[in-house]
C-alpha cells in the first residue's frame, strides 16, 4: 500500500461493505456459537425478528419519525441562529471579540446536563427535546463557522477590493461563497452529534422516540430490541451523511467535483 494513493470507486464500496459483513459475522459467531449469553447480547437473527415485530406490531416507525423530527427541528433552528452569527463573527472582529469568549465557554457545557433544568423550565414535551438539540448544536456551529470564515484567504479578499467591492459585498460575494462548502461540512458533522443528544433527551421523561423504546426494552431485558434501536440510529446517520455529501457535491462542484 502506497500512502495517499486513491482506490477505485468499486474497491472502495467493496471494502466498506466487507467490514460490515465481518462485523456481523463476528457478532453472529459470538452469540449463535454460545460464547456470549443471550441475557447480555442478542444474536443478529433475534435482533432482526425483534425489530420486525417492533415495526409491524408496536408502531416503532412512529417513534423513529418522532426522533428524526426532533433532531431535524432542533438542528435547523440551531443552524438558522448559528450560521449567520458565525459568519458575522468571522467577518467582523469586534463582533467576534464580543461573543467569542462566551460561546467558547458555553460550548463546554454538556447539553445532557441541562436536561433536568430544561424539564423544569419546559416540561417533558417537544419544546424541551428541541431545546436540548439546540443547545448542544448552536455553540459548536457558531465557533466552527466563525473560525472558517475568519481563515478566508486574504488575497481573495484583496482581489475583490481591487475589483471594486465594498465592505458589504466582500462579505456577500467573497466570505460567504468561499466558505459555503466548509459551512455545509460543519453542519454535517454537528448533525451527527445532535443524534447523541436526542437519544439522551429521550431516555429521560419521554413517551415516544427511539430512546424511549430503548429504555422500555431495558425493563424487559430485550437486548434484541435495544440493539435494533441502536442500529436504526446508525443507519439513519449513515443515510443522512450520504445525502448531505451528495447534496454538497452537487451544490459545490468547484470544490468537490
Amino acid at each position: 500500500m502506497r500512502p495517499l494513493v486513491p482506490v477505485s470507486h468499486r474497491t472502495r464500496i467493496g471494502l466498506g461493505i466487507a467490514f460490515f459483513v465481518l462485523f456481523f459475522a463476528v457478532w453472529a459467531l459470538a452469540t449463535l456459537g454460545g460464547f456470549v449469553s443471550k441475557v447480555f447480547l442478542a444474536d443478529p437473527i433475534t435482533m432482526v425478528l425483534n425489530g420486525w415485530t417492533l415495526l409491524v406490531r408496536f408502531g416503532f416507525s412512529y417513534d423513529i419519525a418522532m426522533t428524526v423530527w426532533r433532531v431535524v427541528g432542533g438542528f435547523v433552528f440551531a443552524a438558522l441562529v448559528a450560521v449567520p452569527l458565525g459568519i458575522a463573527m468571522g467577518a467582523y472582529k469586534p463582533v467576534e471579540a464580543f461573543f467569542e469568549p462566551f460561546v467558547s465557554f458555553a460550548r463546554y457545557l454538556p447539553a445532557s446536563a441541562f436536561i433536568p433544568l430544561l424539564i423544569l423550565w419546559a416540561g417533558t414535551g417537544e419544546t424541551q427535546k428541541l431545546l436540548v438539540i439546540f443547545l448542544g448544536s448552536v455553540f459548536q456551529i457558531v465557533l466552527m463557522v466563525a473560525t472558517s470564515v475568519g481563515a478566508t484567504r486574504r488575497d481573495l479578499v484583496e482581489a475583490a477590493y481591487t475589483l471594486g467591492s465594498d465592505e458589504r459585498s466582500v462579505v456577500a460575494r467573497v466570505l460567504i461563497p468561499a466558505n459555503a462548502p466548509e459551512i455545509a461540512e460543519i453542519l454535517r458533522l454537528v448533525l451527527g452529534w445532535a443524534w447523541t443528544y436526542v437519544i439522551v433527551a429521550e431516555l429521560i421523561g419521554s413517551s415516544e422516540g427511539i430512546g424511549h423504546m430503548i429504555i422500555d426494552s431495558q425493563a424487559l431485558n430485550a437486548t434484541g430490541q435495544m440493539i435494533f434501536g441502536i442500529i436504526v440510529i446508525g443507519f439513519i446517520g449513515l443515510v443522512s451523511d450520504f445525502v448531505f455529501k451528495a447534496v454538497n457535491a452537487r451544490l459545490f462542484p468547484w470544490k468537490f467535483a
Partner: protein
Amino acid sequence: MSAPKLSIEGIARVFPGVGRRGQPTRAIEPTSLQVAENDFITILGPSGCGKSTLLRLVAGLDTPTSGRVVLNGRVVVRPGPDRGMVFQSYTLFPWLTVAENIAFGLRERGVPSLERRRIVDDYIERMGLAGFERHWPKQLSGGMQQRTAIARALANSPEILLLDEPFGALDNQTRALMQELLLGIWERDRKTVLFVTHDIEEAIFLASRVIVMTARPGRIKAEIRVELPHPRRYTMKTAPEFSTLKARLTEEIRAEALIALAER
C-alpha cells in the same frame, strides 16, 4: 510634461518587528516616481527588495509609513477598481467559472447583463480562453489562470494596471507567449501599466521604462528608457540594442543581488 497620471511621492514603508526583540523591517526607503499616461513601466529588483510592497501601496492595499500616492490628482487611501491588480499568487475566485471571474468587477459596478456578456466574451476571445468559459479555476493551468486574472482586471477598464510577477511561475515558452499577448493588448489599448518582475529580458521586452530597485531597503537605483520600436516581436530579444540594454541591466542587478546575498 503634463501632470503625471500616477505620482509616487516620497513613499516609505516600515514593517514593525516580529516579537519583542524583532527589528523593524524597512521594506521601502522614501521613493518617488512619476508615471505618464500610457507608460509601460517594469520594476526590476532582487527578491525581497519591496517590489510587491510598492505595488500594494499603489493599489491601496497597504498604507505607507510616510509619503503618498496620487492617481489622477487624487490621493490613494484605499483599494478601488481604478487600479486593477494581478497578484503574484493565483487569486481567481475558485467558486466562480472563468467567465464569472472576468465579470466580477462588472457585476460590482452594476453593468447590465447584456453589456457584461459582450465585454466578457471579448476578453475570453482576446486572451485565448475560448472553450474554457465554464471551467472552474482549479481545472486550468497556471498560465490560463493568470490570463483569466489579467482579463478580470482589464474588464474593469482600470486607469492603471498593476501586475506583480504575473508570469513568475510559468515555464519559459509559456512566459514568452504571455509577454507577447500582454504587449499586444497594451499596443492596442495603451493602458498605463506597472509591471513587477525579476526577469531582465521580460523587463526590457515589455517596457517603455525599466526601473531598477536596490536590495532591501528598496529604493530606485536606476531608470532606463527602452526606445525599441513597437510593435515588438519575440525576435527582438536577439537584436543588438536589446543585448546592450540587457548587459547594462544585468550589471545593475548583479550588484544588488550581491548586496542582498551578503546581508543574509
